[in-house]
Protein backbone atom coordinates (compact mmCIF):
# COMPACT_ATOMS: atom_id res chain seq x y z
CA UNK A 1 0.00 0.00 0.00
CA UNK A 2 1.64 3.26 -1.01
CA UNK A 3 1.78 6.15 1.43
CA UNK A 4 0.99 8.75 -1.21
CA UNK A 5 -1.09 8.66 -4.38
CA UNK A 6 -0.99 11.57 -6.81
CA UNK A 7 -3.02 11.68 -10.00
CA UNK A 8 -3.05 14.00 -13.00
CA UNK A 9 -5.65 13.98 -15.73
CA UNK A 10 -4.80 14.66 -19.38
CA UNK A 11 -4.95 18.43 -18.90
CA UNK A 12 -2.58 18.38 -15.95
CA UNK A 13 -0.36 15.78 -17.59
CA UNK A 14 -0.09 18.08 -20.62
CA UNK A 15 1.02 20.87 -18.27
CA UNK A 16 3.59 18.51 -16.73
CA UNK A 17 4.86 17.70 -20.23
CA UNK A 18 5.20 21.38 -21.10
CA UNK A 19 7.17 21.97 -17.89
CA UNK A 20 9.38 19.01 -18.79
CA UNK A 21 9.96 20.46 -22.25
CA UNK A 22 11.21 23.69 -20.68
CA UNK A 23 13.39 21.75 -18.24
CA UNK A 24 14.88 19.73 -21.08
CA UNK A 25 16.04 23.02 -22.63
CA UNK A 26 17.98 23.26 -25.86
CA UNK A 27 19.83 20.26 -27.22
CA UNK A 28 22.69 20.58 -29.70
CA UNK A 29 24.39 18.21 -32.09
CA UNK A 30 26.62 18.44 -35.13
CA UNK A 31 27.42 16.03 -37.89
CA UNK A 32 27.08 15.35 -41.57
CA UNK A 33 24.28 14.27 -43.84
CA UNK A 34 23.18 14.04 -47.42
CA UNK A 35 21.61 17.05 -49.07
CA UNK A 36 20.60 15.57 -52.37
CA UNK A 37 23.91 14.85 -54.15
CA UNK A 38 25.86 17.03 -51.71
CA UNK A 39 27.37 16.21 -48.34
CA UNK A 40 26.35 18.81 -45.82
CA UNK A 41 28.00 19.48 -42.48
CA UNK A 42 25.66 20.84 -39.87
CA UNK A 43 25.31 21.98 -36.33
CA UNK A 44 21.78 21.97 -35.02
CA UNK A 45 20.00 23.17 -31.88
CA UNK A 46 16.61 21.83 -30.95
CA UNK A 47 14.04 22.57 -28.27
CA UNK A 48 10.59 21.14 -27.75
CA UNK A 49 7.33 22.92 -26.95
CA UNK A 50 3.61 22.40 -27.03
CA UNK A 51 1.84 19.22 -27.93
CA UNK A 52 -1.11 17.52 -26.31
CA UNK A 53 -1.22 14.31 -24.33
CA UNK A 54 -3.52 11.34 -24.63
CA UNK A 55 -3.23 8.92 -21.73
CA UNK A 56 -3.72 5.38 -22.99
CA UNK A 57 -3.78 2.62 -20.35
CA UNK A 58 -1.96 0.65 -19.30
CA UNK A 59 1.21 2.60 -19.80
CA UNK A 60 1.25 4.67 -22.98
CA UNK A 61 1.29 8.42 -23.33
CA UNK A 62 0.64 9.61 -26.84
CA UNK A 63 2.03 13.07 -27.56
CA UNK A 64 0.48 14.81 -30.54
CA UNK A 65 1.84 17.79 -32.46
CA UNK A 66 4.78 18.48 -30.19
CA UNK A 67 6.75 21.35 -31.72
CA UNK A 68 10.39 20.67 -32.56
CA UNK A 69 11.92 24.13 -32.75
CA UNK A 70 15.18 23.78 -34.62
CA UNK A 71 17.90 26.09 -35.85
CA UNK A 72 20.52 24.89 -38.26
CA UNK A 73 23.88 26.08 -39.44
CA UNK A 74 24.87 23.95 -42.37
CA UNK A 75 27.29 24.16 -45.23
CA UNK A 76 28.11 22.17 -48.30
CA UNK A 77 30.71 22.38 -51.03
CA UNK A 78 29.44 23.30 -54.47
CA UNK A 79 31.76 22.56 -57.42
CA UNK A 80 30.51 25.13 -59.90
CA UNK A 81 32.03 23.15 -62.78
CA UNK A 82 29.27 20.57 -62.18
CA UNK A 83 26.58 23.15 -62.89
CA UNK A 84 28.04 25.84 -65.12
CA UNK A 85 29.08 25.47 -68.77
CA UNK A 86 32.73 25.75 -69.78
CA UNK A 87 33.40 29.42 -70.25
CA UNK A 88 36.22 31.19 -72.07
CA UNK A 89 36.79 34.88 -72.49
CA UNK A 90 37.07 35.18 -76.26
CA UNK A 91 39.93 36.85 -78.09
CA UNK A 92 39.29 40.59 -78.42
CA UNK A 93 41.36 42.93 -80.61
CA UNK A 94 41.78 46.69 -80.56
CA UNK A 95 44.63 49.22 -80.71
CA UNK A 96 46.78 46.63 -82.49
CA UNK A 97 46.61 44.22 -79.59
CA UNK A 98 44.64 40.99 -79.16
CA UNK A 99 43.94 39.33 -75.85
CA UNK A 100 44.46 35.58 -75.75
CA UNK A 101 41.47 33.36 -75.19
CA UNK A 102 41.30 32.82 -71.44
CA UNK A 103 39.26 29.90 -70.17
CA UNK A 104 37.80 30.12 -66.70
CA UNK A 105 37.92 27.20 -64.30
CA UNK A 106 34.95 27.60 -62.00
CA UNK A 107 35.86 27.24 -58.30
CA UNK A 108 34.34 25.02 -55.65
CA UNK A 109 32.40 27.25 -53.28
CA UNK A 110 31.29 26.56 -49.74
CA UNK A 111 27.64 27.44 -49.30
CA UNK A 112 26.80 28.43 -45.69
CA UNK A 113 23.16 28.36 -44.64
CA UNK A 114 21.47 29.42 -41.43
CA UNK A 115 17.91 28.31 -41.07
CA UNK A 116 15.36 27.81 -38.34
CA UNK A 117 11.82 26.51 -38.30
CA UNK A 118 9.44 24.32 -36.39
CA UNK A 119 8.61 20.73 -37.24
CA UNK A 120 5.99 18.64 -35.49
CA UNK A 121 6.16 15.22 -33.95
CA UNK A 122 3.51 12.73 -32.93
CA UNK A 123 4.36 9.48 -31.21
CA UNK A 124 3.82 7.05 -28.37
CA UNK A 125 5.81 7.34 -25.18
CA UNK A 126 6.14 5.05 -22.16
CA UNK A 127 6.10 6.32 -18.61
CA UNK A 128 8.45 4.80 -16.05
CA UNK A 129 9.86 5.66 -12.65
CA UNK A 130 13.52 5.07 -11.92
CA UNK A 131 15.93 5.74 -9.09
CA UNK A 132 18.94 7.36 -10.73
CA UNK A 133 21.72 7.73 -8.20
CA UNK A 134 20.09 9.59 -5.33
CA UNK A 135 17.23 11.03 -7.40
CA UNK A 136 13.86 9.65 -8.29
CA UNK A 137 12.81 10.33 -11.87
CA UNK A 138 9.59 9.76 -13.73
CA UNK A 139 10.51 9.67 -17.39
CA UNK A 140 8.30 9.76 -20.42
CA UNK A 141 10.37 7.91 -23.00
CA UNK A 142 9.64 7.74 -26.70
CA UNK A 143 8.83 4.37 -28.24
CA UNK A 144 10.57 4.02 -31.60
CA UNK A 145 10.77 7.01 -33.92
CA UNK A 146 7.82 9.41 -33.85
CA UNK A 147 6.15 10.69 -36.99
CA UNK A 148 7.79 13.92 -38.15
CA UNK A 149 5.99 16.66 -40.08
CA UNK A 150 8.16 19.38 -41.59
CA UNK A 151 5.37 21.52 -43.02
CA UNK A 152 6.37 24.71 -44.77
CA UNK A 153 9.89 24.44 -43.36
CA UNK A 154 10.89 22.25 -46.28
CA UNK A 155 10.16 24.95 -48.81
CA UNK A 156 11.67 27.52 -46.47
CA UNK A 157 14.97 25.65 -46.32
CA UNK A 158 14.93 25.19 -50.08
CA UNK A 159 14.47 28.95 -50.51
CA UNK A 160 17.24 29.60 -47.97
CA UNK A 161 19.59 27.35 -49.92
CA UNK A 162 18.75 29.21 -53.14
CA UNK A 163 19.46 32.55 -51.50
CA UNK A 164 22.65 31.20 -49.92
CA UNK A 165 23.93 29.90 -53.25
CA UNK A 166 23.29 33.26 -54.89
CA UNK A 167 25.02 35.11 -52.06
CA UNK A 168 27.96 32.71 -51.79
CA UNK A 169 28.95 32.73 -55.45
CA UNK A 170 28.38 36.42 -56.09
CA UNK A 171 32.11 37.06 -55.86
CA UNK A 172 32.98 34.56 -58.60
CA UNK A 173 33.98 36.55 -61.69
CA UNK A 174 31.84 36.18 -64.81
CA UNK A 175 29.19 34.14 -62.99
CA UNK A 176 26.57 36.88 -63.06
CA UNK A 177 24.83 35.84 -66.27
CA UNK A 178 24.60 32.25 -65.00
CA UNK A 179 23.47 33.06 -61.48
CA UNK A 180 19.73 32.51 -61.81
CA UNK A 181 20.20 29.30 -63.77
CA UNK A 182 22.77 28.10 -61.24
CA UNK A 183 20.43 28.55 -58.27
CA UNK A 184 17.62 26.82 -60.15
CA UNK A 185 19.88 23.91 -61.07
CA UNK A 186 21.17 23.43 -57.53
CA UNK A 187 17.65 23.48 -56.08
CA UNK A 188 16.48 21.05 -58.76
CA UNK A 189 19.10 18.44 -57.88
CA UNK A 190 18.43 18.80 -54.16
CA UNK A 191 14.67 18.78 -54.47
CA UNK A 192 12.08 18.35 -51.74
CA UNK A 193 13.33 14.81 -51.17
CA UNK A 194 16.83 16.07 -50.45
CA UNK A 195 15.53 18.59 -47.94
CA UNK A 196 13.27 16.17 -46.09
CA UNK A 197 16.06 13.59 -46.13
CA UNK A 198 18.51 16.00 -44.55
CA UNK A 199 16.02 17.33 -42.00
CA UNK A 200 15.17 13.75 -41.11
CA UNK A 201 18.85 12.93 -40.69
CA UNK A 202 19.38 16.00 -38.52
CA UNK A 203 16.28 15.75 -36.31
CA UNK A 204 16.07 11.98 -35.85
CA UNK A 205 19.02 11.78 -33.41
CA UNK A 206 17.26 14.36 -31.23
CA UNK A 207 14.00 12.41 -31.02
CA UNK A 208 15.47 8.92 -30.97
CA UNK A 209 15.34 7.97 -27.30
CA UNK A 210 13.77 11.33 -26.47
CA UNK A 211 13.01 11.49 -22.77
CA UNK A 212 10.93 14.08 -20.97
CA UNK A 213 11.43 14.02 -17.22
CA UNK A 214 8.11 14.96 -15.62
CA UNK A 215 9.28 14.29 -12.06
CA UNK A 216 12.71 14.72 -10.51
CA UNK A 217 13.21 14.82 -6.75
CA UNK A 218 15.94 13.69 -4.39
CA UNK A 219 15.42 10.37 -2.66
CA UNK A 220 15.86 12.23 0.64
CA UNK A 221 12.96 14.59 0.03
CA UNK A 222 12.86 17.85 2.02
CA UNK A 223 9.35 18.26 3.41
CA UNK A 224 10.01 21.46 5.34
CA UNK A 225 13.13 23.57 4.83
CA UNK A 226 15.39 24.58 7.69
CA UNK A 227 14.32 27.83 9.33
CA UNK A 228 16.74 28.43 12.18
CA UNK A 229 19.27 26.80 14.48
CA UNK A 230 16.61 24.84 16.36
CA UNK A 231 14.54 24.07 13.28
CA UNK A 232 16.61 21.88 10.95
CA UNK A 233 15.30 20.58 7.64
CA UNK A 234 12.60 17.94 7.91
CA UNK A 235 12.92 15.25 5.28
CA UNK A 236 11.53 11.86 4.43
CA UNK A 237 13.04 9.11 2.32
CA UNK A 238 11.15 8.09 -0.79
CA UNK A 239 11.62 4.35 -0.66
CA UNK A 240 9.55 3.46 -3.73
CA UNK A 241 8.01 5.36 -6.61
CA UNK A 242 5.72 4.19 -9.39
CA UNK A 243 3.93 5.75 -12.32
CA UNK A 244 1.21 4.23 -14.47
CA UNK A 245 -1.56 5.33 -16.77
CA UNK A 246 -4.79 4.27 -15.13
CA UNK A 247 -8.26 4.01 -16.67
CA UNK A 248 -11.53 4.94 -14.97
CA UNK A 249 -14.21 7.37 -16.08
CA UNK A 250 -11.27 9.46 -17.26
CA UNK A 251 -7.71 8.35 -17.85
CA UNK A 252 -5.10 9.57 -15.40
CA UNK A 253 -1.38 9.49 -14.83
CA UNK A 254 -1.09 8.02 -11.35
CA UNK A 255 2.04 8.36 -9.25
CA UNK A 256 2.45 6.25 -6.12
CA UNK A 257 5.10 6.62 -3.47
CA UNK A 258 6.17 4.95 -0.27
CA UNK A 259 8.09 6.98 2.30
CA UNK A 260 9.93 6.44 5.54
CA UNK A 261 10.84 8.95 8.22
Amino acid at each position, binding site marked *: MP*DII*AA*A*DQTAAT*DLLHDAEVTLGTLSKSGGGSLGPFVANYSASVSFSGGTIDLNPPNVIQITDCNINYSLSLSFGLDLNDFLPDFCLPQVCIFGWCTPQICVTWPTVTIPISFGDTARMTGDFTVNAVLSGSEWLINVVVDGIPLLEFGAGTLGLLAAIGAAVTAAVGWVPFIGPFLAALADAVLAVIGIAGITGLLGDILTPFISGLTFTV*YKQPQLFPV*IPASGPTDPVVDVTITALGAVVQASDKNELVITAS*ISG
Partner: protein
Amino acid sequence: MSLTQTHHVFVGVEESGINTFLHALFTARPHYLNYGSPFFVPTSTVTATSVSAIPFPGVPGGIQFDVSFSVPTVNLYPPDPGSTSPIPPGPNQFGLHTSVTIVLGCMTWGQETNLRSTVSISPISATLDVWALGTPTSQYSGPGTGSIGLQVLDVRIPAIQPEKFEAIIDCLIRMLLNAVLANVQLPFHALSLGAFTLILEAGPEIDNHEVEVWGSI
Protein backbone atom coordinates in the same frame (compact mmCIF):
# COMPACT_ATOMS: atom_id res chain seq x y z
CA MET B 1 -14.58 6.87 -10.36
CA SER B 2 -11.45 8.76 -11.26
CA LEU B 3 -9.15 10.05 -8.56
CA THR B 4 -9.16 13.57 -9.94
CA GLN B 5 -12.97 13.63 -10.27
CA THR B 6 -13.95 17.05 -11.67
CA HIS B 7 -10.49 18.49 -11.00
CA HIS B 8 -7.18 18.07 -12.81
CA VAL B 9 -4.98 16.73 -10.02
CA PHE B 10 -5.50 14.72 -6.87
CA VAL B 11 -3.23 13.93 -3.95
CA GLY B 12 -4.07 11.42 -1.26
CA VAL B 13 -1.79 10.85 1.72
CA GLU B 14 -2.47 7.62 3.58
CA GLU B 15 -2.60 7.43 7.36
CA SER B 16 0.82 5.77 7.27
CA GLY B 17 2.14 8.68 5.20
CA ILE B 18 0.79 11.30 7.60
CA ASN B 19 2.34 9.39 10.52
CA THR B 20 5.64 9.23 8.64
CA PHE B 21 5.53 13.00 8.10
CA LEU B 22 4.72 13.52 11.83
CA HIS B 23 7.52 11.19 12.89
CA ALA B 24 9.99 12.96 10.61
CA LEU B 25 8.93 16.39 11.85
CA PHE B 26 9.04 15.63 15.57
CA THR B 27 12.21 13.58 15.30
CA ALA B 28 14.01 16.40 13.50
CA ARG B 29 12.54 19.07 15.79
CA PRO B 30 11.79 17.45 19.17
CA HIS B 31 11.57 20.86 20.84
CA TYR B 32 8.03 21.03 19.41
CA LEU B 33 7.11 18.24 21.85
CA ASN B 34 9.21 19.15 24.90
CA TYR B 35 8.68 22.29 27.03
CA GLY B 36 10.09 23.17 30.40
CA SER B 37 10.56 26.09 32.77
CA PRO B 38 14.17 27.21 33.43
CA PHE B 39 14.74 24.70 36.23
CA PHE B 40 14.19 21.89 33.69
CA VAL B 41 15.08 23.60 30.38
CA PRO B 42 17.43 26.53 31.00
CA THR B 43 17.61 27.54 27.30
CA SER B 44 15.77 26.52 24.16
CA THR B 45 17.54 23.95 22.01
CA VAL B 46 16.53 21.66 19.16
CA THR B 47 15.59 19.13 21.86
CA ALA B 48 13.40 21.28 24.13
CA THR B 49 11.79 24.70 24.39
CA SER B 50 12.39 26.82 27.46
CA VAL B 51 9.30 28.58 28.84
CA SER B 52 8.73 30.75 31.88
CA ALA B 53 7.87 29.28 35.24
CA ILE B 54 4.28 29.91 36.37
CA PRO B 55 4.40 32.96 38.65
CA PHE B 56 2.55 32.67 41.92
CA PRO B 57 2.88 35.15 44.79
CA GLY B 58 5.05 33.73 47.52
CA VAL B 59 6.48 30.89 45.48
CA PRO B 60 10.13 31.75 44.94
CA GLY B 61 10.91 31.90 41.21
CA GLY B 62 7.44 30.63 40.31
CA ILE B 63 6.20 27.10 39.79
CA GLN B 64 8.74 25.00 37.85
CA PHE B 65 7.33 22.38 35.44
CA ASP B 66 8.05 20.30 32.38
CA VAL B 67 5.60 18.96 29.76
CA SER B 68 6.62 16.38 27.13
CA PHE B 69 4.52 14.64 24.51
CA SER B 70 5.45 11.46 22.72
CA VAL B 71 5.41 11.57 18.91
CA PRO B 72 1.68 11.50 18.13
CA THR B 73 0.11 9.07 15.69
CA VAL B 74 -3.10 9.73 13.80
CA ASN B 75 -5.94 7.46 12.83
CA LEU B 76 -7.81 8.78 9.80
CA TYR B 77 -11.54 8.12 9.31
CA PRO B 78 -12.93 5.50 9.25
CA PRO B 79 -11.60 4.30 12.63
CA ASP B 80 -9.20 1.39 12.67
CA PRO B 81 -11.05 -1.79 13.72
CA GLY B 82 -8.82 -2.50 16.70
CA SER B 83 -8.69 1.05 18.02
CA THR B 84 -9.42 1.52 21.73
CA SER B 85 -9.94 5.27 21.44
CA PRO B 86 -12.78 6.57 23.58
CA ILE B 87 -13.47 9.22 20.90
CA PRO B 88 -13.20 7.51 17.49
CA PRO B 89 -13.04 9.82 14.44
CA GLY B 90 -16.16 10.58 12.44
CA PRO B 91 -16.31 11.58 8.78
CA ASN B 92 -13.63 14.09 7.82
CA GLN B 93 -11.99 13.67 11.23
CA PHE B 94 -8.81 12.17 12.56
CA GLY B 95 -8.11 10.50 15.86
CA LEU B 96 -4.79 11.19 17.57
CA HIS B 97 -2.97 9.19 20.17
CA THR B 98 -0.05 10.38 22.23
CA SER B 99 1.14 10.42 25.82
CA VAL B 100 2.01 13.39 27.92
CA THR B 101 4.45 13.44 30.80
CA ILE B 102 3.95 16.28 33.24
CA VAL B 103 6.73 16.98 35.70
CA LEU B 104 6.22 19.36 38.60
CA GLY B 105 9.12 20.89 40.42
CA CYS B 106 7.81 20.24 43.92
CA MET B 107 9.36 22.99 45.97
CA THR B 108 9.92 23.58 49.70
CA TRP B 109 11.40 26.75 51.09
CA GLY B 110 12.10 28.40 54.48
CA GLN B 111 14.53 30.58 56.47
CA GLU B 112 17.58 29.40 58.39
CA THR B 113 18.76 30.96 61.63
CA ASN B 114 21.32 33.16 59.88
CA LEU B 115 18.42 34.68 57.81
CA ARG B 116 19.54 32.91 54.60
CA SER B 117 16.54 31.52 52.67
CA THR B 118 16.65 27.89 51.47
CA VAL B 119 14.79 26.37 48.49
CA SER B 120 14.71 22.75 47.48
CA ILE B 121 12.97 21.20 44.44
CA SER B 122 11.97 17.58 44.10
CA PRO B 123 10.59 16.70 40.63
CA ILE B 124 7.50 14.51 40.63
CA SER B 125 5.97 13.29 37.39
CA ALA B 126 3.01 11.49 35.87
CA THR B 127 2.51 10.10 32.38
CA LEU B 128 -0.98 10.08 30.88
CA ASP B 129 -2.36 8.35 27.81
CA VAL B 130 -4.00 10.99 25.60
CA TRP B 131 -6.69 10.43 22.96
CA ALA B 132 -7.74 13.34 20.78
CA LEU B 133 -10.08 14.09 17.92
CA GLY B 134 -9.58 16.74 15.24
CA THR B 135 -10.11 17.95 11.73
CA PRO B 136 -7.67 18.93 9.00
CA THR B 137 -7.17 22.58 8.20
CA SER B 138 -5.63 24.32 5.25
CA GLN B 139 -3.74 27.55 4.91
CA TYR B 140 -3.72 28.99 1.43
CA SER B 141 -1.14 31.67 0.78
CA GLY B 142 -1.40 31.96 -2.99
CA PRO B 143 -1.64 29.86 -6.14
CA GLY B 144 0.42 26.76 -5.56
CA THR B 145 1.51 27.65 -2.04
CA GLY B 146 -0.11 26.70 1.21
CA SER B 147 -0.15 23.96 3.77
CA ILE B 148 -2.29 21.48 5.60
CA GLY B 149 -2.50 21.39 9.38
CA LEU B 150 -4.25 19.53 12.20
CA GLN B 151 -6.65 21.06 14.69
CA VAL B 152 -7.68 19.24 17.89
CA LEU B 153 -11.35 19.52 18.84
CA ASP B 154 -11.58 17.22 21.84
CA VAL B 155 -9.28 15.32 24.20
CA ARG B 156 -9.89 12.37 26.51
CA ILE B 157 -7.59 11.18 29.26
CA PRO B 158 -9.54 8.27 30.69
CA ALA B 159 -7.23 7.58 33.61
CA ILE B 160 -8.19 10.73 35.52
CA GLN B 161 -10.81 10.81 38.22
CA PRO B 162 -13.00 12.48 39.33
CA GLU B 163 -14.83 13.45 36.14
CA LYS B 164 -14.74 17.20 36.76
CA PHE B 165 -11.00 17.10 37.32
CA GLU B 166 -10.63 15.14 34.09
CA ALA B 167 -12.49 17.95 32.25
CA ILE B 168 -9.94 20.43 33.55
CA ILE B 169 -7.00 18.27 32.51
CA ASP B 170 -8.65 17.46 29.15
CA CYS B 171 -9.01 21.16 28.43
CA LEU B 172 -5.46 21.87 29.53
CA ILE B 173 -4.07 19.11 27.33
CA ARG B 174 -6.27 20.18 24.38
CA MET B 175 -4.81 23.67 24.60
CA LEU B 176 -1.27 22.32 24.86
CA LEU B 177 -1.81 19.81 22.05
CA ASN B 178 -3.22 22.45 19.69
CA ALA B 179 -0.18 24.57 20.45
CA VAL B 180 2.06 21.61 19.62
CA LEU B 181 0.17 20.73 16.43
CA ALA B 182 0.27 24.35 15.25
CA ASN B 183 3.80 23.44 14.19
CA VAL B 184 2.49 20.72 11.90
CA GLN B 185 2.10 22.49 8.56
CA LEU B 186 2.64 20.17 5.61
CA PRO B 187 3.25 22.22 2.45
CA PHE B 188 1.10 21.35 -0.57
CA HIS B 189 4.16 20.50 -2.68
CA ALA B 190 5.33 18.05 0.00
CA LEU B 191 2.03 16.17 -0.06
CA SER B 192 2.73 15.17 -3.68
CA LEU B 193 6.48 14.80 -2.96
CA GLY B 194 7.14 17.68 -5.34
CA ALA B 195 5.20 16.25 -8.28
CA PHE B 196 2.85 19.22 -8.53
CA THR B 197 2.60 22.84 -7.60
CA LEU B 198 -0.91 22.36 -6.33
CA ILE B 199 -3.52 25.07 -6.68
CA LEU B 200 -6.00 23.88 -4.06
CA GLU B 201 -9.60 23.66 -5.23
CA ALA B 202 -11.12 21.15 -2.80
CA GLY B 203 -10.13 19.56 0.49
CA PRO B 204 -8.42 18.70 2.62
CA GLU B 205 -10.88 15.95 3.37
CA ILE B 206 -10.36 12.82 5.38
CA ASP B 207 -11.82 9.64 3.99
CA ASN B 208 -10.66 6.12 3.22
CA HIS B 209 -7.86 6.46 5.79
CA GLU B 210 -6.26 9.28 3.83
CA VAL B 211 -6.08 13.04 3.60
CA GLU B 212 -7.31 14.03 0.16
CA VAL B 213 -6.92 17.25 -1.78
CA TRP B 214 -7.91 18.22 -5.31
CA GLY B 215 -6.88 21.09 -7.50
CA SER B 216 -5.09 22.14 -10.62
CA ILE B 217 -1.48 22.91 -11.47
